[in-house]
C-alpha cells in the first residue's frame, strides 16, 4: 500500500525540481566502453574547462595549490581535474577575494577543471567545536574564534564564489564507525540539505552540483538515500560517508550497492579513495571519479608509490641506489633522478618532496589511464589480475576484501 504513495511523491518532487532547474547542467557524460564482465566503464566527462577521461583520480590541492607543484607541471602530468577545499579557502583568503581574482581558476591560474567539496567534512574533522543542527554546521573559527554557521546555502555561496566546475552539496557527515539513529538522521538531513543546495546554486549553467549518498554502513539507509537522491535532477552523484576507518568488507559492499542504483548516464564519484588497490577494485564496482590526499601527503614523507607498493626513499637502503624510483615510470623525476640522489636531497631541500610528489601524482594518473585503456580494449579483468600479481608478492597476500569484492563482479584471482 505504501509503495504507490511513495511513487506519487517521487513524481511530484521530480517534476517540481525539473521546473526549478531549467538550465541544462554544464556536464556531459559519454560512455565509451563498459566492461562486459565487471561494472567498470570508461567515459568522457565534459566539464566547463575541459573533457575529463574517466576513470579519473583527482589530486587534492587543499589551499589552491598542489603542494609545491606548479600548475604547468600538474597540467603536463595530464591532470584534467583537481580539488580545492572550500573550508580552507573560505577561511583564507576568503570567497570575496577569490571572486575578485576571477574565481579559484583565476586565483591559482589553473586552466583545467576544479572540484570543490562542501566544507562540511573538514569542519567536522578539523574543528573541535562544531555542532550540527538543521540550519547547518556551527563552528568557531580557528583564526579569530568567531562563531560561524556553514549552512547549505552558505556552502554553495562560497563554492559559487570559487567558481568550481563541480560543487559538492553540504552533507551531514557522521563517522562511518558510528551506527544507530544518528546515521539515519544524518541521511535524511543530507537529503533536505541537497534540496537547499540545489535551490541556492546561482550558477547552474556554469557549475555542477553533485549529490552525496549517505546512509553509513546500513544497506537499508543507503538504499533509501539512493532512492530519494536519484529523484533529484543533479548532474552527478558522490558516494560519501565511507573511507573513514570502517571495515573494508563494509566499505566495498556500500560502494557496490550504490553503483547498482545510481543512474548509468551520470558520473559516480567515490570520495576519499586513493590507494591503488582500492582504486582498481572500485573501478570494477562501477565508480568513475576518485580523490585522496594520500599520494601527495605521503610524498612529503619520502614515500614513493610504485606498482609493487611503495618505497620510502629516506631509508638508508636507497643511499647508493642508482635506479630511478620506478625504472618503467616516464615522469620527469624518474627520467632524471636516481633513488640515491633523492635520498641525499631529502636531507637538504624541499625540492626532494616536489620530485616525489610529481612522481606520485604521475603514478596515480598513469594507473587510471591504464585502467581506462584496458576497459576500452575490453581486457579490464586481465588488467586487474596482472595489477594484483604485481602489487602483492603472492596470492596469499591478496586482501580478502578485494578478492571478495572482485568475485562479485566475476573477476576471480588466482
Amino acid at each position: 500500500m505504501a509503495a504507490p504513495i511513495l511513487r506519487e511523491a517521487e513524481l511530484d518532487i521530480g517534476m517540481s525540481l525539473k521546473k526549478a532547474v531549467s538550465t541544462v547542467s554544464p556536464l556531459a557524460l559519454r560512455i565509451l566502453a563498459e566492461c562486459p564482465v565487471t561494472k567498470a566503464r570508461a567515459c568522457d566527462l565534459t566539464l566547463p574547462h575541459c573533457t575529463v577521461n574517466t576513470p579519473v583520480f583527482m589530486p587534492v590541492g587543499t589551499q589552491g595549490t598542489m603542494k609545491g607543484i606548479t600548475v604547468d607541471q600538474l597540467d603536463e602530468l595530464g591532470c584534467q581535474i583537481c580539488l580545492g577545499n572550500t573550508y580552507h579557502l573560505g577561511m583564507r583568503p576568503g570567497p570575496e577575494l577569490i571572486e575578485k581574482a576571477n574565481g579559484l581558476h583565476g586565483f591559482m591560474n589553473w586552466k583545467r577543471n576544479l572540484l570543490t567539496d562542501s566544507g562540511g567534512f573538514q569542519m567536522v574533522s578539523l574543528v573541535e567545536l562544531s555542532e550540527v543542527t538543521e540550519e547547518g554546521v556551527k563552528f568557531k573559527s580557528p583564526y579569530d574564534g568567531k562563531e560561524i554557521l556553514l549552512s547549505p546555502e552558505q556552502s554553495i555561496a562560497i563554492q559559487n564564489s570559487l567558481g568550481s566546475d563541480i560543487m559538492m552539496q553540504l552533507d551531514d557527515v557522521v563517522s562511518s564507525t558510528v551506527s544507530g539513529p544518528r546515521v539515519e538522521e544524518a541521511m535524511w538531513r543530507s537529503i533536505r540539505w541537497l534540496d537547499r543546495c540545489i535551490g541556492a546554486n546561482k550558477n547552474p549553467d556554469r557549475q555542477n552540483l553533485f549529490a552525496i549518498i549517505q546512509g553509513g554502513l546500513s544497506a537499508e539507509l543507503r538504499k533509501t538515500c539512493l532512492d530519494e537522491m536519484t529523484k533529484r535532477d543533479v548532474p552527478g552523484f558522490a558516494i560519501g560517508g565511507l573511507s573513514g576507518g570502517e571495515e573494508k568488507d563494509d566499505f566495498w559492499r556500500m560502494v557496490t550497492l550504490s553503483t547498482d542504483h545510481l543512474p548509468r548516464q551520470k558520473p559516480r564519484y567515490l570520495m576519499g579513495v586513493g590507494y591503488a588497490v582500492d582504486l582498481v577494485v572500485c573501478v570494477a564496482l562501477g565508480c568513475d571519479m576518485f580523490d585522496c590526499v594520500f599520494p601527495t601527503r605521503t610524498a612529503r614523507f619520502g614515500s614513493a608509490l610504485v606498482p609493487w607498493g611503495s618505497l620510502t626513499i629516506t631509508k638508508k637502503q636507497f643511499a647508493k641506489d642508482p635506479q630511478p624510483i620506478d625504472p618503467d615510470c616516464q615522469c620527469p623525476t624518474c627520467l632524471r633522478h636516481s633513488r640515491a640522489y633523492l635520498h641525499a636531497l631529502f636531507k637538504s631541500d624541499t625540492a626532494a618532496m616536489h620530485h616525489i610528489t610529481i612522481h606520485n601524482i604521475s603514478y596515480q594518473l598513469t594507473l587510471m589511464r591504464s585502467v581506462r585503456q584496458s576497459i576500452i580494449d575490453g581486457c579490464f579483468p586481465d588488467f586487474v589480475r596482472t595489477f594484483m600479481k604485481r602489487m602483492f608478492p603472492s596470492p596469499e597476500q591478496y586482501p580478502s576484501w578485494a578478492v571478495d569484492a572482485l568475485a562479485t563482479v566475476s573477476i576471480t584471482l588466482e
Partner: protein
Amino acid sequence: MKLELSRVVQGCRLGVLTGLGRAGQHSLEVPGCLLYTRCGSVPHLTQDTLHTLKNLPSVTQLTLDTLAEHQEVLEEFKEGAGKFAGLHDTVLYCSLHDPATSSPTGHITNKTVSVWGSGGRIALSVAKFMALQKAVRPDLYHSMADGETWPGNVSRKRVRKSVDRTLAHLDECLLLHHRTQELAGVEVLGVVEGGDVLEERVRSARETAKRPVGGFCLDGFHSAAMDQNLRTQLIATTVKELPEDKPRLLQGVGRPDHVLSCVEVGVDLFEGFFPFQVTERGCALIFAFDIATDPEAAGTGPQAPPTARCVPEAPVDSRIVGELDDDKPEADVVENNGPGYQEDQTKMTPFEINLKDKRYRDDFGPLVEGCGCYCCRNHQRAYLHHLLMTNELLAGVLLMLHNTAHYCAFFTALRVALASDRLEHLKKRVLMGQARG
C-alpha cells in the same frame, strides 16, 4: 680558463671568462654571478621549474657543506656530483661553504677545517678535502681555506695564522691536485684571506698570486663580517696585488648595492645566494635596474642613497617598505661587527618587498610589472601572499624563480651599463629606486 677583459670602466671590469668546463666549451660573462645550489639543486626548484628561466648563469655552485656527507656515495657513483644531481650542460664550481648559511666558529685547527652537513660537523684535512674534490669532480674549485677572521672578535695574530694556514693548504692542495688523474684539467682558485688587516690582505694576495692558480676567491668579506666601506677599501688594495688576467670571485656578498661597490673595486664574480635568502624570508626582489629611462625623470622621488644603515632595524613586519631609517647612526653598524652582525642576513633589505604584508592581500598585479619569469607571467601578488600566509610550499618555488630571474637580470643590466658607459645611470636607478613596490 681565460679572462678576456673588453673594457675597464671606473675600476669595473667587463669581460668574459672563456674556456670553462672540461672541454672548454663554456663561457661566463663578468661581472656576473653563479647559480646557487644546495646538494646540487637550486633550492625549491626541480629542473623543469628552473628551466622556465632563460639566461641562467652558466656556472653552478656546489658546496661541500651540503655534499661532504655524501662522500662515500659519490665515490661509489664515480661520475661526479653534477651527474649525480642530474645537472647537465653546466660548469660546476665547488666551494667549501654554503654562502647562505653561517657555520659555527671555533672548529678550525692547523690541519683541518670543518663543514656542517645535515648530520653535523665533518672535519676536513687537506687529504679529505681533495678526496672530496675527486668525488665531486667539479670544473673548478677553491683550495681549502681558514676563513675564520671576523673583525671585532679576532686578533691580528689569528688573522696572520689564517693567512699562513690558507697558503699552506693551497700548496698542499696543488700538490695533490697535480697527482690526481681525475682532476686533470680542473681549475683551482686560490683563497685570499686576511680579515680586516690590510697588511695581511696584501700579503695573502701577493703570496697566493705567486702560485699556479686559475683565479682568486676573496674570502672573509661576507655581509655578516664587515661594513661596506671597509670592505671596498680592503678589496681595492688587495686586488692591486692580483694579476689583471685572472678572475676574482667574492664570497658571501650578494646585496645589489654591495655588488655595485665591489664591482667598482675590481670584483668579477659573485655567488648567487642572495635571491635564496630573500626567498626564505618570504620576500620578492623588486628593485629597478632598467636604464632605458632617466632615473630622475622616472618619478622615483628623492630618497637617501643606501649605505650600510639601509639594513632595516625594525622587525620586518612593522617596517614600511622603502622607508629608510635616516636617524640611525652609521657607527652602530660598525660596532655591531662580530657575531651580533649576523642578524642582518635574515632581515629585509631595501631591495625587496615582504609579500606577507597585508597590503598585498588583494594586490592582483605581478611581483614586477614586465618581468618575464614564470611567476610573474602566471601569478599575482595576492596569490603569493596567500601561499605565504598558509605556509604552502609553492611560495618558495615561485619566489625562488622570480628572485633568481630578477637577480640574474640585474647582472645583465650591469654589464649592459658598463658596455654603454651608463654605470652612473644604473647606480642611481638601483640605489634610489629601491623597493617602491
